[in-house]
């Protein structure tokens, strides 16, 4: 009887702990798209992303979003052209969603499936590898999303009548902390 009570006392908090939600908040981020043109190699950078993650019952869901107009390529004219081409006034946010098991999130390399809303379209990217380094409650994530213009039905912008390359890889570097 005593043993059963003792087991109960030990196991109930453990079970409760497993049910407890874990919250993650995005501290700092650098998102940068790379655009290639025969005359130009351009990187548009944003530090304005915000993100939150929730882990519950072994499953984690993360949401990261950034205003499209927050990307700065170093030239206002080019950024306004990008905003127009990506329908950034009509669809002002780029939104990334991902879900994975909590166990997978502790590996040094995490393969995640991403759902990205951008330019009024939704694209899915499977098994995108991200590097993960942890220090206490802080976790840094970095990787590259292999995005293309055609994924989001974006008419490739052109300069001197020559369009940019279809590939616009997005580099991601983020720092998260556990609440």
């Amino acid at each position, binding site marked *: 009887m005593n043993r059963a009570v003792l087991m109960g006392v030990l196991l109930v908090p453990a079970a409760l702990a497993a049910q407890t939600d874990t919250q993650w908040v995005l501290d700092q981020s650098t998102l940068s798209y790379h655009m290639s043109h025969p005359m130009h190699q351009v990187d548009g950078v944003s530090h304005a992303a915000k993100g939150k993650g929730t882990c519950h019952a072994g499953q984690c869901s993360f949401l990261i*979003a950034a205003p499209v107009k927050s990307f700065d390529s170093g030239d206002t004219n080019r950024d306004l052209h990008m905003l127009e081409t990506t329908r950034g006034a009509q669809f002002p946010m780029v939104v990334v969603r991902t879900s994975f098991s909590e166990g997978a999130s502790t590996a040094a390399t995490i393969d995640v499936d991403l759902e990205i809303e951008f330019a009024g379209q939704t694209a899915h990217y499977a098994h995108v590898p991200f590097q993960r380094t942890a220090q206490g409650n802080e976790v840094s994530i970095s990787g590259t999303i292999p995005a293309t213009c055609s994924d989001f*039905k974006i008419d490739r912008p052109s300069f001197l009548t020559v369009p940019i390359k279809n590939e616009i890889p997005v580099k991601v570097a983020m720092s998260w902390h556990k609440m």
Partner: protein
Amino acid sequence: MKLKVAWLVLLSLMIVLLFSLSLAAQTATLSGTATDAKGKPIANAAVTLKPATGAPIEVHADADGNYRIPDLAPGEYTLSASGEGLSSKAIKVTVTTAPRQTVDVLLVPEQELPSAPQAAPSSAPASPSLQDLGFSSEQTQGNAQLQATLAKRTHMLKTHQKLGLITVIPMAATLITGPQAKAKGRNGGTIKEPTTANLDFHAALGGATTALYFSAAYFAIRAPRVPDTKKHGGIRWHEALAFVHGPGMILTPILGAMAYNQENNGEKAHGIAAQHGTVAYVTAIAYGTSIVAVSWPIHWKFWEK
């Protein structure tokens, strides 16, 4: 001879004007995709575009939910779609002179229509939402009016860019033919009387350059401004240099005309008219630099596909 030059300049102006108008006068094509909230295309969706006045236009989407409505005059329209028991909200669309515009249509069950936002994120119940992240509704809500302004701006600046690049050709030719207006004689000496043909040709090229230049400038000046935009980067140099080549493009033809009259009166170009060439070179250099400035930084990678 003056009459001949006037005709040549007038002809150049008319060619440039017709060319500019052909670049500017275009109808638009509206296209997009009709999907449900999960992003599934609605095949054969009925898409209706109602102009402010006149009969509505109805087209049907293809098997992938893509619709296309060509030959639209610029103006205000209302777009809606229905199919597979779903309907969309009525969307205000401003068709501009941009040749292609894209508006995707989200179809939802009719009972959800009043609160169904376009491009609403579909998220699992436990997932955080955009509101949780702390973005204001101003940041997350689309602005069709601003999108239309951006589309018009891009279209006008593309025309500006094309005309501006074409201007380089007669400008270079004018600079080359300038010294030839005082071509050396066969004995190697400078002829005192410039040949009529060279002068006329140079004047006509100058006229074409001026007309093209101001046509290009028109599209840049008239392109709509985007509110709350602080300019930085190469565009600032591009615009600043216009304060050099703009007055230069006014002054050069005036000085040229003065020099032309002096030469025709048997005089050597003198006074301020003698600076025609110098002003023209400064103007051309500023013009070329402004093209480089808006293209900066340049990384040649033509070998990459």
